[in-house]
């Protein structure tokens, strides 16, 4: 092999670079994010596992129904009526974006730009 | 074939470095604008499109101008254009890429640009503009590359490419017609609400595009040992002459309609552009010098390219004449047309537009990128020509 020194050295550096996510934290996945759940509500709009996976999809469905179709119909949970709204429903129970939403989002390095417009509750 | 662009003399590299400087400045300026918002331009609530869209409008025309080489050669068998159709096709690629860069620079939410594809809207002309721009870009890239490759291997181009070559001709007409349709269907913008906008766009495109190609060809004769041939240049000059005069005829008709009917909606934008518009005691005339510059440069250019001595015997003055026409139509379309459409505003106010320095640097950066791409592509094309001749 010509230039074997350079090639092998280069390959080594590349492999190290590309496996950074594996060895940087020395095998651990970091601390599991701790969420501050609302004190006065027992269930969310959907069951916990479902809402964790699907909340963005749900918000998009709500957005299209409310904003584009004009369907502002409410839905019921435990006898109470709720609107299909991030600010008026979700954030009324999850009153702290920093201690709830941001915990998982920071851990998974997700940066939703919802908050550019939808005003987060005052901390 | 790209390796042909990697070998050049020091003037080639100096030119690329010169362009690279402006590209870097443009990138930094655009990042400033991206993170702050479009407030970092001169655009306002009343003149909501500025020089970015104006450059886009002009460059679509330059891209369409390439068809003036393709049409005579492939349809009418005008053999003299055989060596230079590649110049037209590569110019179209560079111009179209500049157009897209200007549109991206102008968007308020550029990361959402794909929404136009995710939510296709056939009744919006901007959707069709995106379609034809991309279509024409792909056609030119495909045709240019395949035919150049065939030339390099010294074989006839494959038969299937001719379908795309013929397709690129109506596409060229369509890109500029669709861009004109962006403007000429808007109620309330009376300066643009005229059927002659599309013909005027095409006329100035068929003058400006070939004018730039002639200038490029003359420069390439000087620096790259590439002679397009007297017959080819002469025919292009003929095309430029007729197209330029047609554009001025159309402009003259616009003047007649506005000034003879004396209807304010048809007259006031022209008045603002060429003479200044008086409104509530103040005369607004910041574009007047540009428009008269356009007229003077046109007359100088037309004079130079039609006079027998400068046309046939003197490359330098011919180049100056064509450059003059190119700059004249840039002033007409790239500055006058778009900006004056917004004034007077729908509520009959006048708010003059001035680009600010950040906007100018971004614009210069995009132009530099276009010329960079053009230089690289022409280097490839000429590299192949020289290789074949050897």
């Amino acid at each position, binding site marked *: 092999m010509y230039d074997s020194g350079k090639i092998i050295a280069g390959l080594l550096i590349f492999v190290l670079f590309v496996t950074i996510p594996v060895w940087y934290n020395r095998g651990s996945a970091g601390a599991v994010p701790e969420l501050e759940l609302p004190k006065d509500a027992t269930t969310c709009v959907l069951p916990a596992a479902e809402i964790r996976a699907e909340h963005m999809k749900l918000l998009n469905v709500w957005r299209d129904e409310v904003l584009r179709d004009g369907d502002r119909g409410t839905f019921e949970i435990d006898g109470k009526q709720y609107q299909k709204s991030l600010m008026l429903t979700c954030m009324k129970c999850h009153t702290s974006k920093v201690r709830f939403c941001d915990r998982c989002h920071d851990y998974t390095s997700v940066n939703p730009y919802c908050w550019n417009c939808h005003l987060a509750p005052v901390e | 074939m790209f390796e042909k662009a990697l070998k050049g003399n020091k003037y080639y590299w100096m030119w690329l470095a010169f362009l690279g400087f402006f590209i870097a400045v443009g990138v930094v300026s655009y990042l400033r604008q991206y993170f702050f918002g479009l407030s970092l331009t001169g655009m306002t609530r009343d003149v909501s499109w500025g020089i970015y869209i104006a450059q886009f409008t002009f460059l679509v025309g330059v891209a369409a101008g390439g068809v003036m080489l393709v049409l005579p050669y492939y349809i009418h068998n005008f053999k003299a254009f055989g060596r230079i159709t590649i110049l037209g096709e590569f110019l179209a690629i560079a111009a179209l890429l500049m157009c897209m860069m200007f549109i991206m620079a102008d968007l*308020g939410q550029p990361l959402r640009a794909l929404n136009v594809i995710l939510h296709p809207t056939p009744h*919006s002309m901007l959707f069709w503009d995106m379609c034809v721009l991309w279509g024409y870009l792909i056609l030119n890239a495909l045709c240019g590359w395949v035919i150049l490759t065939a030339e390099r291997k010294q074989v006839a181009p494959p038969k299937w490419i001719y379908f795309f070559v013929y397709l690129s001709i109506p596409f060229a007409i369509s890109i500029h017609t669709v861009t004109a349709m962006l403007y000429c269907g808007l109620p309330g913008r009376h300066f643009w609400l005229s059927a002659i906008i599309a013909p005027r766009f095409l006329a100035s495109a068929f003058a400006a595009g070939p004018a730039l190609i002639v200038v490029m060809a003359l420069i390439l004769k000087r620096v790259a040992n590439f002679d397009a041939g007297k017959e080819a240049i002469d025919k292009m000059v003929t095309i430029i002459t007729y197209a330029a005069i047609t554009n001025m005829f159309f402009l003259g008709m616009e003047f007649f309609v506005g000034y003879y009917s004396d209807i304010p909606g048809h007259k006031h934008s022209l008045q603002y552009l060429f003479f200044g518009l008086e409104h509530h005691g103040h005369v607004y005339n910041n574009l007047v010098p540009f428009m008269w510059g356009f007229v003077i440069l046109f007359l100088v250019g037309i004079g130079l390219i039609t006079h027998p001595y400068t046309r046939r015997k003197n490359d330098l003055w011919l180049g100056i004449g064509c450059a003059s026409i190119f700059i004249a139509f840039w002033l007409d379309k790239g500055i006058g047309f778009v900006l004056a459409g917004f004034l007077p505003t729908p509520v009959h106010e006048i708010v003059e537009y001035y680009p600010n320095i950040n906007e100018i640097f971004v614009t210069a950066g995009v132009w530099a990128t276009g010329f960079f791409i053009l230089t690289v592509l022409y280097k490839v094309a000429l590299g192949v020509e020289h290789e074949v001749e050897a």
Partner: protein
Amino acid sequence: MDTNRRNFLKVAGISTLAGLGGTTIVNRLVAGVDEAHAAAPAGSGVERKTSETIRYGLVIDIKKFHQDPSLGEKAVNACHQIHNVPKFPEKRDEIKWIWMTNFENAFVESPNLYQDEANQTHQLPILCNHCDNPPCVRVCPTKATYRYEDGIVGMDYHRCIGCRFCMAACPYGSRSFNWRDPQAYIENINRDYPARTRGVVEKCNFCVERVQAGLQPACVEAVGDSKALVFGNLKDPHSEIRQILKEKQTIQRNPSLGTIPSVFYIV
């Protein structure tokens, strides 16, 4: 390169493209089946159905705004406050959903030589006309602006790419653009309504969130009993707004353009 390697690369390239393209197309088709159900009502304003029973409209009584100049400010402030409309220091960045202007600026097709004194000294409000045939909806390349069945022309800030084509198309100058981030410039934040981000176009939305909940628009509520602004259903022959339109002569802005506005002005 020898021909075998060349053929291999050709086949590999085409199969990769086919694989990627194929899966994408299949996915989109599958998703498209679900989307198609949702897509039908969420079309553009041009393809959307028009309701047979509801079309919202607004009547503006110019004389009442002359008689009580404070009404204009009340209407504008109510709207801008409830919708978090920012107030920028420089006029070039300005965003306004409803504002007061002179007669000759509102009605550019009307002659204004020897204008009456009241119109010379007082102003009237103008806003988005929520046209029946809106040019802004026609030109939007992403359907970010669209017409509801009840006639309101809405704005989807999530989809707007900020191309400002709608601003060029509007013959009334009703639309504003967020040239910069507005949140720092909102004077009294209403925490029950979102703000906007930089790079999107906004305009009056006829308080669609209030109207669809049975309330009156904020500007109408702000002028109270003066009836300077009357909002209602144009298709209901017994509504208050239809009564006024029957009794009083009204004009509209730029009628020759065929936009069929929903806003009427009693001269």
